[in-house]
């Protein structure tokens, strides 16, 4: 599968994502520049973590107007696969490609630590290589990861299975302590209603090598790659 990782000014995990895809997983992956309009024929677009445009105003608010985002919107509306991690998730929400928004963590401070999430829906292109109920150990590192959406919208999302990952403890149980940022309904990842656009706050690209703590991020990338 051919992947494109978008580099915005202020992207930070762009090289790490490319490394995870290319060097660790042996995928065909290329860097895309935010000022370009072309997606270079990729089959999956990854919007990486970071502080695009310094996260000034609101995380992702300015990046969503980068020239490449037009193409990403078009690509998504044609059914192309788009995944946003951390800042990428924030950008996708700002661009209205995903429902809801990400706001300041409940603690008001940046949090970098390993957390656990549970796979809530394994019938999506982003989770199909895993099983429902699987618990993944992944790192988070963000200051604005508290997921919010309108109550009616949340209910609808739950019904359709758009809540893809939820924070939980190491044994997969729900617990207030296991929700690191205070996200509504402990939501860590969501998809759009067509299930081709996906955003997650944890960093799968930082969980691909045992020496660095976890390989659970591979499940996400393998799911996507298994399409072709």
């Amino acid at each position, binding site marked *: 599968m051919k992947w494109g990782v978008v580099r915005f000014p202020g992207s930070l995990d762009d090289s*790490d994502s490319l490394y995870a895809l290319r060097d660790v997983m042996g995928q065909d992956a290329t860097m895309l520049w935010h000022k370009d309009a072309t997606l270079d024929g990729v089959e999956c677009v990854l919007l990486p973590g970071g502080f695009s445009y310094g996260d000034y105003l609101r995380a992702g608010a300015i990046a969503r107007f980068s020239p490449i985002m037009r193409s990403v919107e078009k690509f998504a509306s044609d059914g192309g696969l788009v995944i946003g991690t951390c800042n990428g998730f924030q950008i996708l929400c700002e661009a209205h490609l995903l429902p809801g928004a990400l706001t300041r963590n409940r603690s008001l401070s940046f949090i*970098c630590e390993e957390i656990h999430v549970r796979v809530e829906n394994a019938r999506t292109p982003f989770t199909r290589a895993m099983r429902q109920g699987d618990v993944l150990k992944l790192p988070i*590192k963000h*200051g604005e990861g508290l997921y919010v959406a309108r109550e009616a919208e949340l209910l609808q999302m739950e019904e359709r299975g758009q809540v893809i990952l939820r924070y939980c403890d190491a044994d997969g149980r729900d617990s207030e302590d296991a929700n690191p940022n205070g996200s509504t309904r402990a939501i860590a990842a969501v998809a759009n209603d067509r299930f081709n656009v996906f955003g997650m706050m944890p960093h799968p690209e930082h969980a691909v090598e045992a020496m660095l703590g976890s390989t659970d991020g591979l499940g996400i990338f393998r799911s996507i790659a298994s399409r072709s």
Partner: protein
Amino acid sequence: MASAKSLVGEPRVDLEQARAHGLSDAEFERIRQLLGRTPTFTELGAFSVMWSEHCSYKSSRKHLKTLPQKSELVVQGPGENAGAIDVGDGWVAVFKIESHNHPSYVEPYQGAATGVGGILRDIFTMGARPIASMNSLKFGAFDHPRTRYLLGGVVGGIGGYGNCVGVPTVAGEVMFDAAYNGNILVNAFCIGLARAGELWSAKARGPGNPVLYVGSATGRDGIHGASLLASAEFDAESVAKRPTVQVGDPFTEKLLIEACLEAGKTGAIVAIQDMGAAGLTSSSSEMAARGGLGIEIDLDRVPLRDQSLTPYEILLSESQERMLIVAERGRERELEAVFEKWDLHAIVIGEITDDQRWRARWRGEIVADIPVAALADDAPIYDRPAHPPVARTPAPIRRSVEPRADTALRAMLSSPNVASKRWVYRQYDSIVQGNTVVGPGGDAAVLRIKGSRRALALKVDSNPRACAIDPYLGAVASVVEAARNVACTGARPVGITNCLNYGNPERPEIMLQFAEGVRGLGDAARALGAPVVSGNVSFYNETEGRAIPPTPTIAVLGVMTDVSRHVTAHFKNPGDVIAIVRTAQPSLAASEYASIYGGGADALPAIDLGRENALIEALVAGSEQGLIKSAHDVSDGGLAVAVAEACFNPEQAKLGAEIDLAARGLAGIVELFGEGASCVVISTGTPHFQALRREFSGRGLKLDDIGRVTADARLKLAPLIDEDVNALYRIYEDALPGRLASDG
């Protein structure tokens, strides 16, 4: 040649004015001699910053010269923006530490943030990509009214800046002590990697080469900031200097990192330096001075945030995120294109000349015209008197009651100095760039080098309590502690950077502390074969006449040849042998125990540097052979705390330890809680114990089997302590957040 003119409306330059600029009468006289006339106001400003302690090292230079600066691995010693060491496989590590103490006390968030920004620029101007940061923080007593505010602001600022530029913060230290109530310390470290043979320089070459300005526009930020703030003692009045606070823009810094590293690949950069303290003045004059050349700058071309800035202000501004580049003539376009790509502008503001003068023009006038060397090299060098204070340190207060050992252990684990610093470091991105094998929480950070089996280990340490008792031994202890932390991971210490935080050097007793500190640093560095390749001096850390304790902050870089052999601090398997090795007997002097319960000593145990080096060698050899399962340095809180910490693996169900103190002759307060003797708690599988023991005994050290790792999560230090490890862990983890959440 027309000499520089004063401008209409500029203040008159006389002795009074020179004094207001922090110059001594003799210094002012010397300036007039060097120029053959009275300087203009703009020139006076330039001299005052360049001849400040901060930029000229006038009081410290004589001592710093004595430090060991060479080894076969040193690629760049002091003199450039940062030092560099060959770490193998074609890589060079570039690193430095710097203070941002006073700005952080005035405005903690921005002060700490801009401290991080400044040290990053020192690294990437060497052509190295920054790969990790560390910080060393000293606050006042935890319950001092300003401490929480300062702690929150400083940690927020370090995270706010570091997280946004994509450089992981991988280790550090935090201490609370009433001695810092009015003068906190914020020391920031950064390390980068470059390919061997591809370092850049800050030495101008080629008369006629253009000088380019890159980055943020110039504002009134920090004028007389670093120089005055860092050179003047702190009192209530300086709080009123607030409007000059510098604000950091990490987003622009990130663009600068990428753009500069990309621009460097064109080969069109001759020299590059960031505009740090003393901004345009220091960067331009220092680059010219290093090349033995002159430089001419047209101030009308400098991008300004506010058009009303005067030449004086433009030259002295310390606005952040700005770089000065000397380019190869005719290749400006290539550089401009790279910076445009990153939405930054490179603007030609001057050129290199061959007349060895530092000249600035503004609106058709020459506003400054000074021999480059006068500014950058001819600051006076002082051999300041150094002798001990008349009064000696008062003898420590005796303990009235001896607490129970288990009570003391719990008190220690909940002391902010010993307790987990997770509250701090979880606010830092410690994993970006994907190299952090061991992040904050370990004895030292371990970073792999992609495409190589090698890894780097890093730690920063200081020991002001020991330095207060004995500034020489305290400095030695700080070096060996940082080095030992690095060796505990299996890495061999290869280089040192340091930030020397002291009081007012014009006071002989402070100067003695400083001289002794430098001597200790030098002796320890020599003994460990780890040269000092960069550093920073921060004097005048005083409030209302009271100096901080001498605080040399030491960062050590270690290299391991095979990252898969790295060692961490936590016990691994039940049944493993717990062993300790020590270079001397512990003591309560300068200990956390004495600071809580009283009863310290007024002398430190001697340090045998030969044994310290042997300990490091044995740790490295043992881990390279895979004989060590865990190694943890005994530091604040002594042996009892170190063994407890080794049980605290946050990643998995806790293990316990069973140690019969009585049988080993360790069942005393000093044995349990004493510090100062380099001591390491090691665990190893029983089959490896004898081989490991031989590694130590072959080097004249004794590795003592003191107990076993247990599956039962209890800490048993018979007959004194028998505690539930999970309960202790909660005390240790909850201490900082709990205290911060409680009112007051």
